């Protein structure tokens, strides 16, 4: 079915179900309970899960399969965002042309950057992509201000032309929509003490993330995907098997750039503004973190990594000392203080510290990311079921026949 083997079909089915039911799954705690702060089922956060999921899935097609570590992918996301906002400004508030233009512009830009950067490999490639991204960032911040609106960021305005739409409705900027369905629309579903928000914007993102995931599964399982994995494992052999590695890596680079553009386009579809900081190299670092944390070269890894990072970013940065004191209120006063003191640096604004530590631990102890961790964990239960393959099984889910 769908051109997938049975294992991938199951995986895809699980991803579909989880994605569609996310507003429920991510809101397990009743609205008024103390644990409600751990809920993640609100539109803004779920949209970010999907958008960064797409970004990471795309990045993984390049890094996970070919092993080329790009440190400049945020530039494509940024270019996509700018293109998207311009479509919203010039054409209409319908998100479809915006998203299409985001993908096209990011694709063209990645073609240019990839064509140049891929003339080198290894660390040189990483530095070249980094240099391009930093250059784009600097330009967006300074000279290109007429296009990017510099430091302030590109926003919608009341006097935008919007040829196919209206400039303003009752003195305010019209909301983004999908053929009339507004992104911010949705409804709340109250079931007893639980409240679930079903948001149209999220479901649009969900459709895209499922499409992006499905496409990446096809690529992983295709002869093209196999060639990309061959590039990762031995560059010396390739030309002598009659293959030209350049167009393959370039294709992977552009595909992942277009994924980044799609993510950028969805970002502006949900929240119509674009800023230069989206292109900074730390933003590129973030998508690397997501992919590695989840498991580079695996199908599910990037999606998981994006989810984990965005979830913890949101939750950890919300927790403050007051909440900590509540948690540890069962302890004697002195001990309570000690615990709060110890945890304090890692929460709230200290979230990046937690992220950095988490990331180091993963690279040191679990190079295969969360997915490998899960597999090891499963293997503990399924003893005696040791396959001949030792590590990174998921990476090889593309291998024909079981």
């Amino acid at each position: 079915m769908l051109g997938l083997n049975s294992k991938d079909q199951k995986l895809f089915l699980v991803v579909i179900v989880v994605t569609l039911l996310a507003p429920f799954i991510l809101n397990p705690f009743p609205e008024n309970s103390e644990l409600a702060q751990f809920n993640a089922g609100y539109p803004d956060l779920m949209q970010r899960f999907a958008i960064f999921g797409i970004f990471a899935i795309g990045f993984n097609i390049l890094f996970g399969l070919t092993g080329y570590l790009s440190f400049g992918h945020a530039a494509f996301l940024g270019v996509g965002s700018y293109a998207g906002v311009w479509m919203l400004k010039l054409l209409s508030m319908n998100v479809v042309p915006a998203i299409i233009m985001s993908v096209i512009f990011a694709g063209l830009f990645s073609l240019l950057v990839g064509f140049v950067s891929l003339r080198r490999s290894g660390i040189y490639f990483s530095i070249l992509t980094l240099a391009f991204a930093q250059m784009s960032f600097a330009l967006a911040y300074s000279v290109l201000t007429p296009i990017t609106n510099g430091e302030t960021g590109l926003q919608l305005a009341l006097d935008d032309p919007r040829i196919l739409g209206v400039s303003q409705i009752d003195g305010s900027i019209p909301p983004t929509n999908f053929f009339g369905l507004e992104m911010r629309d949705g409804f709340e579903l109250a079931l007893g003490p639980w409240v679930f928000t079903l948001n149209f914007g999220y479901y649009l993102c969900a459709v895209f993330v499922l499409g992006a995931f499905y496409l990446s599964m096809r690529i992983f399982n295709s002869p093209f995907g196999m060639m990309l994995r061959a590039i990762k494992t031995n560059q010396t052999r390739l030309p002598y098997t009659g293959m030209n590695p350049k167009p393959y890596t370039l294709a992977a680079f552009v595909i992942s750039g277009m994924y980044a553009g799609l993510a950028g386009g969805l970002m502006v579809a949900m929240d119509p503004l674009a800023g230069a900081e989206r292109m900074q190299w730390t933003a590129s670092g973030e998508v690397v973190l997501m992919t590695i944390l989840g498991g580079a070269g695996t199908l599910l890894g990037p999606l998981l990594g994006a989810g984990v990072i965005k979830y913890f970013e949101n939750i950890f940065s919300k927790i403050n000392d007051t909440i900590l004191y509540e948690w540890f209120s069962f302890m004697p006063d002195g001990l309570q203080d000690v615990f709060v003191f110890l945890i304090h640096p890692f929460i709230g604004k200290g979230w990046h510290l937690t992220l950095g530590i988490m990331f180091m631990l993963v690279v040191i102890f679990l190079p295969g990311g969360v997915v490998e961790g899960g597999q090891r964990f499963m293997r503990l239960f399924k003893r005696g079921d040791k396959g001949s393959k030792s590590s990174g099984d998921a990476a090889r889910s593309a291998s024909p026949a079981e």
Partner: protein
Amino acid sequence: MDAIILQVLNGLDKGSAYALIALGLTLIFGTLGVVNFAHGALFMLGAFCAVTLNVILNTSYETIDPDRTDFLGNPLKVETPYIFDWFGPEVGGAMIEWSVPLAILFAIPIMVVIGLSMERGLIKYFYHRPHADQILVTFGLAIVLQEIVKYFYGANPIPTPAPAGLVGSFDFGVLLGFEPGSIIYPNWRLIYFVFAAVIIGALFAFLRFTTFGMVVRAGMADRETVGLLGINIDKRFTIMFAIAACVAGLAGVMYTPINSPNYHMGMDFLVLSFVVVVVGGMGSLAGAVAAGFLLGVLESFASMAQVVDLFPGINQIIIYLVAIIILLTRPRGLMGRKGVMED
């Protein structure tokens, strides 16, 4: 002519910082084969050594001066740094005044300890891992280090002035026979350049004229053979890591009066320093120094009003642009050795 000299001078201090950081990066790469994305963080830690020393020296206790009153008529509270009691107000005051140069002495042992523990505690486990893994783990470490600093010192830049006696400017105009005042250059930047030159010179002399340095250079060229000679090359490489950390740290200490340190200064410099290393040629010490100064000066020229008028924004991207051009035309950089990282 005087404008050109001024731009060259302006480029030298930034170039010095690039060169010092890049030197450490390329040294670590050449000896240990590790791509260290945390090297910028070491520069930042050095700068915060200076900040810390300043805070320590200024640690005061409060007394009430019965003879004086504040404007409300209450007895005046006076803060007296502890070192005033220990060394007397004059020496103590001078110490506070000269805290940045003093911080060099303070920073050396700290940076050595940080360098050693970093190499022994983390980096050594990554010798045989792919470069991508090295980049990633040191990138993670850089985040951790800068977040720790942010936790203690906050996100805002902390002004750390140079000693008052060195704050003025030097008039090169008079010295070189131009109009007085045509080339005015802050003293501290001059000091920074001289300092960088001394450190670079000392490091090169150390590598060239000592047995230790000879072994290290031999190890950089061919690690296996040196190992076969029964020389414990790993131990020497560990020490080189500490030295590289120290160089980056000192570069940071001395940079504090030029730019008030903040927690992300390391990352900003890291990206540029990497570009410098690549331009100079991965694993080439002389290349790193040459490229550091070259790019610093180039950046300064690109910032001239006349140039920016002609090519708007060029000052922002010149370094990257040069790096891209050099990487494409001379893949090994200006002075790169053959066979380094060409896989």
